[in-house]
């Protein structure tokens, strides 16, 4: 079969995927522009956002062109790279601290990126191989335990930073992949109960430790506060509760049609914290209202279903699992980010995919698109 180059490229591209991602990038750029318009360095921020998108095209292209099946042979080096990324902020001279978490890679005072972001993708690839090696039969306690050990290792390293939100993303990715990996409903139920007991015990033990040590050891107080404030936002109206309250006011006051781009008072008068990053959805909800939110969630639905279709079309389980992992990552981040702005989820620093300002997550998400394209373009066999 002779195809023109154009046809061959088209064949390797999932047009819907590219279309939805492009639409989201445009939407996100518009929102970042609006959210940063009242900042002193607003136009600079917008340029940095566009720059992040540009940089992200590199990992997108690389992941796309690499045959994902070859990654399976790189399990050892990938684990080493992933572990290094997660631990790197803790290495003296490399780490930078923001909001209580040492989650930045910083060299000579220059903030490079948050290594836990690309580590998500590496974890997806590693975990896909683990489950694929079990041939999609992760349904015995010993197999489940083995798979979960990989997750536990990753989460342990993340909690060293400590970054609770990212840890939750990893757990979510693993759980979604385990659905495809064959884990049964009863196992999920058992894990859920065990996790609940575990978290309760951790909080209890941590409180005890703090008491004994006379200072804040183990889980940081701000992390516990965020969780507790989520349960009862009236606890502390000045900090985390204040953020949540202001975010809810912003979104609620947007009503059906919103106040108009750039006209959100909650946003422009700085009532919304982190309005161009973690709370970009609050700006969107205020300025574009319910219709704007429906548009965004509609785009996400299309994106996620496209990812699911790509997984479904994969010629092997490994590719399907990688696609599933990406889907899980996005789904959870959407749930967590939008959920926290409306008070359904605890407040953590999880960015909204393709929308939030921030190059680390932008580059990572575009890399994830590259992974999906890699799976899609090889659905008929390697090199085809």
């Amino acid at each position, binding site marked *: 079969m002779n195809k023109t180059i154009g046809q061959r490229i088209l064949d390797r591209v999932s047009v819907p995927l590219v279309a939805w991602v492009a639409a989201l990038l445009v939407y996100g750029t518009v929102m970042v522009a609006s959210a940063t318009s009242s900042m002193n360095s607003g136009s600079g921020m917008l340029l940095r956002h566009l720059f992040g998108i540009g940089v992200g095209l590199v990992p997108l292209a690389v992941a796309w062109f690499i045959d994902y099946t070859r990654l399976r042979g790189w399990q050892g080096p990938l684990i080493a790279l992933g572990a290094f990324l997660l631990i790197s902020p803790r290495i003296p001279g490399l780490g930078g601290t923001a909001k209580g978490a040492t989650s930045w890679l910083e060299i000579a005072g220059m903030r490079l990126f948050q290594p836990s972001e690309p580590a998500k993708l590496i974890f997806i690839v590693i975990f896909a191989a683990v489950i694929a090696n079990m041939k999609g039969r992760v349904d015995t306690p010993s197999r489940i335990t083995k798979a979960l050990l990989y997750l536990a290792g990753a989460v342990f390293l993340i909690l060293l930073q400590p970054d609770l939100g990212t840890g939750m993303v990893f757990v979510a990715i693993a759980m979604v992949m385990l659905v*495809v990996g064959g884990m049964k409903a009863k196992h999920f139920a058992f894990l859920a109960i065990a996790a609940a007991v575990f978290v309760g015990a951790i909080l209890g033990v941590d409180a005890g430790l703090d008491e004994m040590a006379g200072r804040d050891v183990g889980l940081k107080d701000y992390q516990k506060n965020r969780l507790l404030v989520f349960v009862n936002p009236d606890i502390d109206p000045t900090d985390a509760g204040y953020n949540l309250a202001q975010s809810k006011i912003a979104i*609620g*006051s947007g009503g059906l049609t919103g106040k108009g781009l750039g006209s959100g008072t909650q946003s422009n008068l700085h*009532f919304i914290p982190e309005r161009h990053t973690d709370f970009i959805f609050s700006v969107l909800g205020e300025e574009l209202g319910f219709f704007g939110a429906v548009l965004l969630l509609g785009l996400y*639905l299309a994106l996620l279903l496209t990812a699911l279709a790509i997984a479904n079309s994969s010629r092997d389980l490994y590719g399907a699992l990688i696609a599933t992992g990406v889907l899980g990552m996005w789904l959870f981040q*959407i749930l967590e980010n939008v959920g926290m702005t409306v008070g359904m989820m605890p407040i953590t620093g999880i960015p909204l995919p393709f929308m939030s300002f921030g190059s680390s997550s932008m580059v990572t998400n575009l890399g994830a698109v590259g992974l999906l394209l890699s799976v899609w373009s090889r*659905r008929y066999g390697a090199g085809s």
Partner: protein
Amino acid sequence: MPTVSQEFRSRFGVLGIVVVVVLSALLVRLWTMQVLNGESFAAQAENNRVREISIQAPRGRILDRNGVPLVTNRSALAVSVDPSHEDVRALLTRTWTKDTADDPTSRELNEVFGEVATLLGITTADVWERVTDVQQEALRPRVIAVDVSMESVAQIAERQTDFPWAIVEEIAVREYPNGNLAAHVLGYTGAISEEQFKNSDEYAGYERGDTVGKSGVERQYEGLLQGDKGWRRIEVNASGRAQGVVSEQAPRPGNDIRLTIDAAVQAVTEEQLDKAIAEAHRQGYTSSRAGAAVVLDIETGEVLASTSRPTYDPAAFLGGISSAEWEALNAKTSEYPLNDRAVMAAYPPASTYKVITAISGMEAGITSENTTYSCTGRWTDMGKQWPKWCWKRTGHGTVSLRGGLKHSCDTVFYEIGYELYKRGEEELQATSREFGLGAKTGIDLPGESAGRVPDAAWKKRYNENYPEYQMWLPGDTVNMSIGQGDMLTTPLQMALVYAGLANDGDVMRPHVLKDVLGSEGDVIRSIEPEVLHETGVSAEMLGVVERGLVDVTETGTAKGAFAGFKPTVAGKTGTAQVKGKDDYAWFCAYAPAEDPKYAVAVIVEQGGHGGSVTGPAARNILAQLLGQELKTIRTTDESR
């Protein structure tokens, strides 16, 4: 081409459902927030964004009866601290937590406020006391200094980056062009107290920190003087910084009011009271520090002058009085300069009361102008074991009722009082009340005292726990007949008694407000004269009393004080005995006797003799009113 889809279809199906469920959950949540509860959130957003700041209305001016300004407004440079600035708010937040351990230390406070405090010549503690004043609206800047020098203001303004929380502004404060003239009538202003603030009836619409009248006319006519606040709605950002004005409403200034006070008469009255106290000192009554004087227009009840000693400076209250000054004004040894003795203090009226006894006796038919009495200096009609003395121990000999007034002979009034007691009808009390004694006059000044007209029922109640003292005795009426015993009157009440005598027996309601002016200076409301008590005393009896009172100033106990004075004055000296104190000197009068216009009452606490201390003061006040020459009079008159 085999894909994994056949084998894993159900697993992908589960994932698809999870995706739809998660997004639907978010959508439902957004629907309830944005569509169902959108309005409530919109209101909260608006509330977040817009702050309403009230604009103080200029307080109305207070003028004298001729339009001479007594209290006006001026602008003063004030330095305030903005409590919503983050530096200050951080400190306040720590102070307001229950945990006192994290309260800002004085060193921290010094770091923030020390330099400004030094520039203003106050201490950091002073600044912090004002900033933490909870009796203020939370966002209102706290004034820490008023009448700041231009030099200090310039330094603070230049270094705005060092003191970003400091606000320099012009504020309107009260100005007293005549110093402390009429301080007691005018009263002072200050920040609304918590008690006043909670009294929502009178202070509806007030905010913490508002300036209100605290005493005198400022307090009495607060509602007229205050005006209506304006407001300005401003848009603020999350740190409370103003971004722009949304809308505003100009304030409506308070009404100017004109008092019945005549500034010139007031000035002379005050000066004469001061001189009377000085004269008391010269005569050896060195404990004398306090007194009061009231001048009335007898036909209208208008208060032409009213003063009290010791006095105070109302300007000391501008921008908040310091606690040291406040304590000094309220110390036990201060003689309470804030009290307006003219209406608040109740004294035994002593011999000035004898006019009431005379009228009561005449109305009872037990005495008349020429009824004669024999005064030996010692009066034993109630029994040898209960002797009473006339002030003139050697006696006045044979003396008539008219002569009794002229010489202030106690024996005459003992006799009348004893006769009245024997009739058992409390006629003396009734006559007293007819003239308004024992009840508040209803003058438009706060804190008025009712005085006391003692009677059998009162005595019984008063000595509830001392049964042996409950019975009304002959001596009670006898003491009362010379204005002693349990009888108490305010200087205003005695001035009204003499005004009533002068006004054919009609006592007019006293008042200090003459009229209320509109924004154009037009009169929008005037106080009309009103009869408070129609005593119904016959012209004949009033004539008897008047002839006795004219004798007093011409040939009687005040002849020295009024020597050569024209026109004729009807007056009466009084020398009240107060246990443990030097005698209190009284003088009450009206003039001209032929065509009365004015009534005067003067009292000097522990001043000695009415004839030589308060008599000359009353003489010069009347001289001012009647266009006569003022004179310094020294008499050695020691009569009562």
